[in-house]
């Protein structure tokens, strides 16, 4: 069972990385406009129309 000595801290470390990811996303305003973000992904106005058409 000695494997737990480093497996548990590793699991915790991964969890913490997720938590910091969440806190960073919150801080940088990723959750301030959730509806808009869902719709922006659908717009393709930023793609130049292809020339050979």
């Amino acid at each position, binding site marked *: *069972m000695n494997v*737990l*000595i480093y497996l*548990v801290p590793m*699991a*915790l470390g991964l*969890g*913490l990385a*997720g*938590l910091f990811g*969440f*806190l960073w996303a*919150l801080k940088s305003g990723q*959750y*301030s*406009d*959730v*509806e*808009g973000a869902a*719709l*922006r992904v*659908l*717009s393709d*106005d930023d793609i130049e129309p292809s020339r050979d058409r």
Partner: protein
Amino acid sequence: MGDALDLSLYAKPDQDGTLGVDLAIEGITCAACINRIEGAVRQLPGIKDVRLNYTNRRLHVAWAAGAPAPVQILPTLESQGYHGHPFVPLRAEQEEAAEARKLTRCLGVAGFAAMNIMLLSVSVWSGNVTDITPETRDFFHWASALIALPAAAYAGRPFFASAWRALKARTTNMDVPISIGVTLALGMSLVETANHAEHAYFDSAIMLLFFLLVGRALDHAMRRRTRAVAGNLAALRADTAHRFDGDEVVSVPVSVLKADDRLLVRPGERVPADGIVLGGGSEIDESLITGETARRKVAAGATVYAGSMNYSGTLTLKVTATDGNALIDEIEKLLEKAASAKSKAMRLADRAARVYAPIVHVTAALTLAGWLIAGASAHDAIITAIAVLIITCPCALALAIPAVQVVASGALFRAGVMLNAGDAIERLAEADTVVFDKTGTLTLPEPRVANAASIDPELLQVAARLALSSRHPLAVALSREAVQRTPYEGAVEEPGQGVRAVIGGIEARLGSGEFCGLKDNAVTDATASSICFVHGAQSTVIAIAQKLRPDAVAVVNALRARGLDLRILSGDRKEAVAPIADALGIVQWQGDMKPADKIAVIEELKRQGRKVLMVGDGLNDAPSLAAAHVSLSPISAADVTQAQADAVFLGERLQPVLDTLTISRRARRLMTENLWLAALYNLVAVPVAIAGLVTPLIAALAMSGSSLLVTLNALRAGGKRS
């Protein structure tokens, strides 16, 4: 409009050194709007950043510091079919946003901790019934402690702070037992871990915090959504004034007006601030102030109040400070008195906490004493007592009411009702008497055509379309009937008389009887105003009057069917109130009511033990809204009045009043049900805990089960309308 609004007045420095302004945008309907708006504004010279927030319908525009605000922003939006209104975030909204971020961070930390500790706990639970070694168990317990202690210290702050505030004020609220329970559970677990014991309750403590934070975060999110809509609507009301700067007239926000500023008020505009008329003469409609629908003639030297509608002529005003103003002073005095006299209704949750906390703490103390007397060791007795505190975990109880509140305020939001006060739902549910104001509440806030049935529909359409070219309030009222919303080309407005245009080769005139060559004696109704229309040989007199909200009769009947006692208290003349009361079948009505008279009636009703719901919109209603048990006002109400109301409803219909009562009554019933469910759960769980049979596994199951039960029950608050 030669005087474009100067956005610099609203600009605020951004973090990256640019100046920015927030605009509430009207007219966003679909995802494509995001690109249309951002694309159009981005092309303007000098724009550094444009970002539309689709969730709250706000556009942030930034330009270089020092540069003047690009004047083209609003016209550009206008040309794309959107209206932008400069928006100053209210302090309350900013504070709430900060609070929401804090809650979400706490929720994130608690969620992370709960998941990881559960992982370790489940291993211990299954190990305890199989072959876990004591060393491994201790390792898992210490790891749990390492996660739980900092996480609880961070994520528990909202509860600890609130509990501390309550204790300092020598009261108790739900957060007191929560804080005590969490602290003791963590402390005991730490001691047990140090003693190599089988059980630790780190998971219970953190799960409790996590569940409660979910409830609070949802509650907050709902309230923020409501606030954002309310904030946008406030911006849409376009509170701007035309101010003389020297000889030039500029548009400025009302918030920057000072005493002695000179203002121009054109016909069809609302008076932006209290003031004294310097020049010009006009008739003004003060129905938003006093409820009186008859117009008042004003000339130089007269006092006018903010919110009055200017009818016929252009006025020049000097802004006065609000003091020394008889009507406003009286209303403010009454407001103060009403607010101080209002007995603070105790919230259901606080009442429950006040009963619950002592019972739990006494039970725990008795358990401790009982086990000691029965000969158990001090260690075992303390462990059992703390287990009682954990199992009576206020989880279900603390979620019982907020969960219903979240679902019910969501349902109200969909019905077009926005809550101002947190405890409004509970008070709304208790209302047994409804007092209506008349003007703007039972009737539509703006006048409408009253005799449409007796006019040739085609002729009415021509007149209504011609009316689009005038800004006179009567013409604006008539223009609401127009199906085709484009004005006739070449229509000319003769100030103070009417509009004329050549339609189909024949001249048409709309305006006073004199202007049209008619005698306007066809309208005999004292409460209506008339406007004449001639088109060649055809002519008609159109009556414009206050009209009932379209569903007023149906809603009033439905309210009566629910056994509510309905009354009308109006500041308008008796002759104007009588027909309305008659149409609605409301027997108890009074006209000519001063603000103080309205309060007197409400106080009398309160003395009879009634719970009064006051629905009103005028400035004169503000004190009675504050005095009533609970209050509602339409979104068209005066600002002071809206601030007093417990909830504000949108739209032209009266239906929201009925929906509000339905939803809040159902919510109140579910809250009581949930409290009983939580009590029932405790009745089963507490004896088990007192007997010393509770393990962490049982605690976790009981807690999740009871929380789930009350949450599912709360979801019923959103259900179908009546």
